[in-house]
């Protein structure tokens, strides 16, 4: 047990050191690419919790990533265009700000909503589904369909949401320039610290009795009910935690990349997020972060070098991992450690 905790915190220290080292070594442009994939790392941690341990596969984490991203972008956009309406609204001849945009005049409300809305939505939706004993592949398909629906909805409501272009053209947070090299570094530091905190929290959850119940649910959900647990409640909670993490990741994405669009939250991204976790190791919180960074950077490189065929590389990678490394990179690492 002590050994486990030691190894567990080793994993976190390793990631923290890596993130710090990257900040020292990389130029601002490369660093902002790392920061972009750090946003996805939040999602990947959530997927480890929910899929690796709880056995619940969601192919729609982009929904919650998008919620966080859009809410943050809405705040930034309102600030950027004040006192006018956002440009895309004027292009679609929207004359007054829609009511649901109102809270995003204030940073406090925005942050609160980023934390609360995705968690509550995720909990209520998934509890309703799990209570009906719907799970496995069916749950994955439902979430996939929801991710698709959300992108269609956003694209259709051009005037209210920025449509297919998304929300873009914002440069300041409370008057603070967020695109300069100096501020990028500050943003990166905050981002990295929060990511490490998220990892620590998730490890604590996994080490508690709750974590053991999750494993039990993954292996024998029907039996867990006869140990006195309302498994729908437990699964919905872990789904809400993963939604919360995704939303935080999305908010950072909007800050770091300077835009959010339906592309970045849709079906393809949602599935990529699962690949990050699978490659890194779906039973390892640290592995998920490494997986997100590695696959992300690889994707950036491949899409520049082989713009036509890079998606096939990604697909092949996923097949390789699933076929030969069921516990991903983290699994390989721990096997090496054991054999040494």
């Amino acid at each position, binding site marked *: 047990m002590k050994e486990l905790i030691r190894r567990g915190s080793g994993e976190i220290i390793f990631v923290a050191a890596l993130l710090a080292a990257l900040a020292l070594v990389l130029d601002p442009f490369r660093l902002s690419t790392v920061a972009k994939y750090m946003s996805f790392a939040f999602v990947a941690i959530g997927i480890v919790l929910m899929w690796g341990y709880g056995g619940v596969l969601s192919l729609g984490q982009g929904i919650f990533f998008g919620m966080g991203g859009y809410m943050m972008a809405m705040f930034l956009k309102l600030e950027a265009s004040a006192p006018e309406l956002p440009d895309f609204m004027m292009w679609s001849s929207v004359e007054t700000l829609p009511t649901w945009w109102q809270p995003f005049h204030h940073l406090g409300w925005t942050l609160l909503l980023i934390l609360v809305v995705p968690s509550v939505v995720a909990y209520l939706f998934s509890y309703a589904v799990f209570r009906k004993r719907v799970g496995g592949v069916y749950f994955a398909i439902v979430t996939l369909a929801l991710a698709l629906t959300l992108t269609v909805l956003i694209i259709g409501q051009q005037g209210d949401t920025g449509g297919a272009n998304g929300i873009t053209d914002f440069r300041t947070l409370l008057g603070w320039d967020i695109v300069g090299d100096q501020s990028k570094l500050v943003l990166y530091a905050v981002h990295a610290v929060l990511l490490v905190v998220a990892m620590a929290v998730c490890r604590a959850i996994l080490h*508690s009795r709750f974590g*053991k*119940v999750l*494993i*039990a649910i993954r*292996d024998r959900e029907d039996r867990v009910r006869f*140990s006195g647990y309302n498994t729908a409640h437990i699964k919905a909670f872990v789904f809400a935690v993963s939604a919360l993490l995704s939303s935080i990741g999305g908010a950072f994405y909007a800050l770091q990349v300077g835009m959010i669009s339906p592309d970045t939250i849709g079906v393809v991204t949602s599935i990529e997020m699962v690949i990050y976790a699978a490659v890194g190791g779906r039973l390892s919180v640290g592995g998920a972060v490494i997986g997100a960074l590695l696959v992300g950077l690889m994707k950036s490189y491949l899409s520049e070098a082989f713009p036509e065929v890079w998606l096939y590389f990604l697909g092949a990678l996923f097949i390789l991992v699933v076929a030969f490394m069921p516990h991903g990179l983290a699994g390989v690492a721990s096997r090496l450690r054991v054999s040494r």
Partner: protein
Amino acid sequence: MAAITPPSDEVLGVQDLTVSFDGFRAVNGVSLSIRRNELRVIIGPNGAGKTTLLDMICGKTRPSSGSIRFNGRELTRLSEHEIVRTGVGRKFQAPSVYEDLTVRENFEISIPGGQGVWGSLLFRRDSVARERVYSIAKSVFLEQSLDEKAGRLSHGQKQWLEIGMLLIQSPQLLLLDEPVAGMSPRERELTADLLQRVCQGRSVIVIEHDMDFVKRIANTVTVMHQGRVLSEGTAEQVQSDPRVIDVYLGH
């Protein structure tokens, strides 16, 4: 079947319970009364509805009609985890334990109380919990294997582990489905002793085929056949009942 006035120390009262699957009545109008501290054995040929009866008591299967009252509470409307929390424990026929967890973790998960989200997050492995796990482990002969993964236990040990997981829930009513199935003769003997200790201070319903085993442990035997109660009495009584001999023991 006429309603019988329940005895004053009745723990479980099953009245006219029926369930049908696609028109086939797996359990058909069964009534049963279990008293405090009673050990009841249910026997019957395959397909008699024994397991289905237990499934309905513990909430796994919803009855089509009839009632199940446990300490005066109607169970047919509750979900599985709520029934567990009223004090009913169920042991399944095939050993069902959490194979990826250690024996200790299997026990810890089963400790009652704090089984909501927050309770599970805040559960501490304090000295009380440790003691409790150790004493239960000892009573099911597993105190040496606490840190082993449950998946590595032998078949008989898994059966014991599951019985232990039930004991730690301290249920008032224990439902055991063929607890000695697949055990070696030595393990059977140990289990028979274990069950006699387990039954102290609670009511138990056991499904069992092995008549020698039944005679060793039972107060009262209920014989089921084709979804109905065929006969009820002591082991000797039912064994000499011509209807029972005809459908079951004679074959």
